[in-house]
């Protein structure tokens, strides 16, 4: 595939992520923060996020698995996850966390487990999408091209 095509594909792909609400403007901000002094900034931040969030998801699963569930603790974890996902622009994950917190308030274990499933799903989705995005970028750079600065045209 030639460079131009690759770049076109990347642009389309990125656009779809925004349109579907998987990513929001915060991700764009991150991309704009990236510069020559920090060419892998976005990748680094996203990696940090996934590292942290996976840990959080495990903590939440464990907390919900207890005989007597400590909802405050679960809520604290979810709140943290919400903040983290907001940092990278993982919009759907963030929204799933908001719904999750409502379940925590109701102190409903079943509801919480369902919410956790939802959050995990969204988390998995955004992770895959971003991996694809970075791969496309790498291919372009490897082919000698440059990744166009993202723009919010939609």
């Amino acid at each position, binding site marked *: 595939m030639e460079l131009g095509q690759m770049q076109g594909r990347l642009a389309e792909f990125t656009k779809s992520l925004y349109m579907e609400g998987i990513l929001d403007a915060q991700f764009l*901000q*991150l991309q704009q*923060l990236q510069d020559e002094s920090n060419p892998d900034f976005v990748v680094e*931040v996203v990696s*940090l996020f996934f590292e942290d969030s996976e840990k959080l998801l495990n903590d939440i699963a464990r907390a919900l698995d207890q005989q007597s569930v400590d909802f405050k603790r679960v809520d604290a974890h979810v*709140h*943290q996850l919400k*903040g*983290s996902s907001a*940092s990278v622009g993982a919009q759907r994950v963030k929204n799933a966390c908001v719904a999750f917190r409502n379940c925590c308030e109701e102190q409903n274990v079943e509801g919480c487990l369902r919410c956790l499933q939802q959050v995990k799903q969204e988390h998995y989705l955004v992770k895959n999408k971003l991996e694809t995005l970075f791969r496309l970028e790498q291919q372009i750079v490897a082919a000698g091209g440059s990744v166009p600065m993202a723009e919010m045209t939609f």
Partner: protein
Amino acid sequence: MENGFPSTRNDSFPAGLRVLVVDDDPTWLKILEKMLKKCSYEVTTCGLARDALNLLRERKDGYDIVISDVNMPDMDGFKLLEHVGLEMDLPVIMMSVDGETSRVMKGVQHGACDYLLKPIRMKELRNIWQHVFRKKIHEIRDIEGHESFEGIQISRNGSDLSDDGHMFCGEDMTSIKKRKDFDNKYDEKDLGDHSSSKKHRVVWSVDLHQKFVKAVNQIGFDKVGPKKILDLMNVPWLTRENVASHLQKYRLYLSRLQKESDLKASFGGIKHPDMHLKDPAGSFGLQSSINTNQNDVANGRFQFSAHKLFGQDVNVKIQEGDLKGIFSEHMPDTKKTLNADNPDPQETSSHMSFDHSFATLGSEVNYEAFDCHIWNEAPKIELKREHKPLLQLEDGFSQLPPCAPEHHVKTDKLHPVPSVTSGLSLTARDVSGPIKNEPLYAEYQGNRVSHVSPKKCAIESFPIQSKGHMVVNHQSYEPVSTAISSMKPQGFNLSCLTDFDYCQRNLKASDSTLAPFNETACLLQGDFHNKYFGLPNIEFTDCNDPSFIAEIPVHWYDTLTSDYECPLDPTEYSIFDQGLFIA
């Protein structure tokens, strides 16, 4: 300290602004660091609040502004905010993904100068320098305002400066001027660097206060004077004014403790839950809102202290209620008690016990403990105070000329002060009398506005009468300051060192006025002393004139409004004034 920093900071403010970011989320920390660097700020990141506090304490002047997340595992962001405000007096910005009104309100109440919602935009970070700049301006204004109070013409520059602010001058004017010059010197050093100007306020740290107390004890409490103390303390950057105002507070504190103990003895436990008292948050909020505009620092402090006051424990609240109840019901009793105790001469022994306590307290780092202590004590003291001044007021009401709102404010201030400080006070005292007072102040203000207004005049008349007297003494510092300073500081210090610093700053302004309050003050002092220490009033022996004693409470009030040697902001006082009116 500013000298150690790269000169770029001085040249192109806000570039080079030294920001400390605290957030437990590593992702956010990385993003914020990048964003701030893009704004050309100097960024330091911290994943733990504990580490952040250590960093801040190590380099007291090492940062210009702190940005902190609200939810952190090791320490609540609001708590960190309070500590920073008290100890370092830096602007703090809170951040959170949660933008609920109640949270934002809590942030503001704790003294945050801004509350940002995550995700944070670059443009929001670009403007954070305004908070640093604003604080700077307010400090300068405070200095100037303070000086104008004293009528000092700061025309000659540097001619009288012997060395770095070390002034051994018998004249107040020169000292004050020197202090201003001292501050000017700092300002000149960092031309254009608003973020690095040295703060003009003296923070009475535990060490510093211990030195002070040691010096006082060495000299002998009844022979003590600011100059002697300053000489003994041998702290080069400390001015005679600083010592004088601190001495005032110390004396007030001691006398307040005495009075409180006396009052306690005389009053039963009447419980009148006062709405104002019971709902510190509410009353405080009222006050805070009133006081909020003028001075960010003042506001922050005020709110902070008030918040702290009320946040302490339920006991305090109840006590406050008691105070109120007692106040309304036992005024006559109070008066009697007060009068009886008033004339007792103080003994050095009482003083010594104070000092001892102070020394002990000084070494304690556990503010929390103090807080609890103080709070429990505070209400009692407060109660006593309230009654006394009121009693006086009523008596003198007919004779008094209309008083300015300031006085009114002062009264309120006084009330809170005694209660707050009297408790354990020992350690708290040096920390910050003023802070405590303020929250109480707010409280009282709200409650008392209706009450006190007629009294206001009464109070005012007192100060007027004694003012002349006070002025004289003020110069020499010994008689007046003894009475007044002992009264004042008491309330503040108790709560906690950090609080005290905060209060101290705030109260300092009030301390300076020293308006004589006449009998009320005297009585209070005596009572507190006796009650608290079981010894005759120490303070009174120092007073050359019994009227001094009485004047002390007034002084308290006056301090707020009139000139004081303390570096506290006049603006803070005006805030109170406004508060009064609004209330």
